[in-house]
């Protein structure tokens, strides 16, 4: 039985399960079958967890029968292979972790499983989250299901591809500088990067600790809201976790549907995006979206985030510095693949061999860059200075939110680019994240959603950014737009 298009969206899955028109085991079997089928085409998975998924689906069916009604109960879910699921391999798409078995589960995973979500797969990524195309993987690149010659974006490209291929209705990604949003844009789905500290990082393999966030990905805002509902909130196992109260993300959506939520909304357009060369289709979509917002009662305000153009160097200094330290634990002694041979190398040589062999090119490049930025004599000019500029970027956002409710930019300056077209030019690759980096540095929540006003040949994503902890506002706005038919979801 093939997967009816009715199951692309979270609400369709969840309603069918509640009405008992389908069981979780049936839904999970279909999801698994689709995943196996699409793996050959798109290579989106590091693992398909058949046994685990069917067992938890069976448990979910028992709970459904007993009348339990968690929104995610029995719903299949894909998880980026940077997030630990106890007893399953977690590779980070890196050779150095090819055999690593998670000894515990991430907090997000424990919470999802407690609510009965069914984890069906671990999705491929750019090694350790470092990349924007999913080509930096020790296990082959992921292909974009919309056009298999193109990149799905990165680093959560596997999760985005799994959604675009229709294998699951929900997925978890992680976002450090745009890794949920940019692949969401490239694959035509919806992805939210929460406020830093909103979702526990415990059990997320660290790339850049001060930037990393786990984020929900789905066909629509409602799916993202359902996932947020389960994973957001304080966690004593994460020292950077926020104690701020969480919203009722799903209920907030439903409530907003009865009101005209775009009426009076102040949408800020950073004038600094004028300095970014946007692909014509992206520019056309942006213009059409602005018109749509205005038509529906929102006011558009031009704002300035003066340090926006500095986000790229600031981000790369900070993320590589933190990564150079975070990835020191993969050393061939305690964790990670050992050196292929060479007791004769001595201790230093053993470390260098294991790490030299285990890490891919981009990871090695970034470790070297970060090591340099932290090294004696360069620390002040790079790491410390970048942290100062980050303060300025943070202030820009604080000021902007005094006059607007949200900020709007395209998610990426372009649509999905061809696989192989940027692998030799890291700077060109990095530029794909120009629009997503500022929100990461400031720690504000940001959502990417597809638009299709002008019939673009490839998906185009738009990004809305809200003040700290205002995820609900983003989900409500995007839900409203999607109910207007924006992006063609409904």
């Amino acid at each position, binding site marked *: 039985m093939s997967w009816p298009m009715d199951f692309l969206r979270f609400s369709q899955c969840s309603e069918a399960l509640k009405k008992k028109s389908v069981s979780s085991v049936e839904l999970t079997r279909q999801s698994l079958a689709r995943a196996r089928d699409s793996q050959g085409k798109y290579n989106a998975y590091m693992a398909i967890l058949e046994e685990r998924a069917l067992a938890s689906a069976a448990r979910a069916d028992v709970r459904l029968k007993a009348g339990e009604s968690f929104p995610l109960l029995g719903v299949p879910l894909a998880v980026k292979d940077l997030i630990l699921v106890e007893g399953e391999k977690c590779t980070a798409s890196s050779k150095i972790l090819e055999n690593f078995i998670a000894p515990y589960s991430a907090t997000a995973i424990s919470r999802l499983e407690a609510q009965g979500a069914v984890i069906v797969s671990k999705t491929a990524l750019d090694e350790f989250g470092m990349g924007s195309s999913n080509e930096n993987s020790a296990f082959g690149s992921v292909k974009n299901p919309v056009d298999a010659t193109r990149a799905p974006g990165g680093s959560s490209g596997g999760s985005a591809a799994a959604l675009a291929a229709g294998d699951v209705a929900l997925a978890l990604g992680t976002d450090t500088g745009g890794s949920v949003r940019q692949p969401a844009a490239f694959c035509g789905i919806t992805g939210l990067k929460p406020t830093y500290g909103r979702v526990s990082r415990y059990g997320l393999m660290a790339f850049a600790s001060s930037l990393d966030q786990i984020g929900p990905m789905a066909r629509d805002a409602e799916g993202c809201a359902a996932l947020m509902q389960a994973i957001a909130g304080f966690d004593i196992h994460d020292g*950077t976790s926020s104690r701020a109260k969480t919203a009722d993300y799903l209920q907030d959506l439903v409530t907003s549907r009865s009101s005209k939520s775009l009426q009076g909304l102040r949408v800020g357009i950073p004038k600094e995006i004028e300095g970014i060369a946007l692909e014509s289709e992206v520019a056309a979509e942006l213009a059409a979206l602005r018109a749509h917002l205005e038509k529906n009662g929102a006011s558009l305000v031009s704002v300035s985030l003066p340090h926006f153009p500095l986000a790229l160097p600031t981000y790369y200094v900070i993320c590589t510095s933190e990564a*150079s330290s975070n990835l020191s634990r993969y050393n061939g002694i305690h964790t990670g693949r050992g050196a292929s041979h060479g007791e004769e190398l001595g201790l*230093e040589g053993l470390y260098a061999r294991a790490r030299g062999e285990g890490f891919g090119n981009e990871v090695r490049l970034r470790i070297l860059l970060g090591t340099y930025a932290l090294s004696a004599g360069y620390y002040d000019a*790079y790491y410390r200075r970048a942290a100062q500029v980050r303060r300025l970027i943070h202030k820009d956002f604080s000021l902007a939110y005094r006059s607007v409710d949200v900020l709007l930019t395209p998610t990426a300056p372009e649509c999905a680019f061809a696989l192989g077209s940027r692998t030799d030019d890291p700077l060109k690759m990095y530029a794909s994240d120009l629009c997503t980096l500022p929100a990461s540095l400031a720690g504000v929540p940001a959502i990417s959603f597809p638009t299709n006003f002008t019939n673009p040949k490839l998906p185009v994503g738009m990004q809305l950014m809200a003040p700290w902890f205002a995820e609900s506002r983003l989900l409500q706005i995007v839900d409203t737009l999607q109910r207007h038919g924006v992006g063609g979801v409904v």
Partner: protein
Amino acid sequence: MTSSFDIAKIARLARIELREGDEARLTSRLEKILASFAALQDVDVAGADPLYSLSEEIVLREDVPEPALDRDKILVNAPNSFDGCYRVGRVVRSE
């Protein structure tokens, strides 16, 4: 800043063994990237307190330990273990 990138020194510090051809390829990439960072040096950062963490205050845990992890679950991920320990080739004391 500078464009002189001593890759051998940094690679040694980072414990990354360079592969054939790495030295030239990585050096040229790194120098290009560093050059693109030049804008950072021109920003007026006077009075800007470095932002190292977005969380303002630390979370504290009570002194109530939980059971330790099962040793086998940890050591299963070590490339080399023996008798309940991680094992390495003999480490010379002066290293």
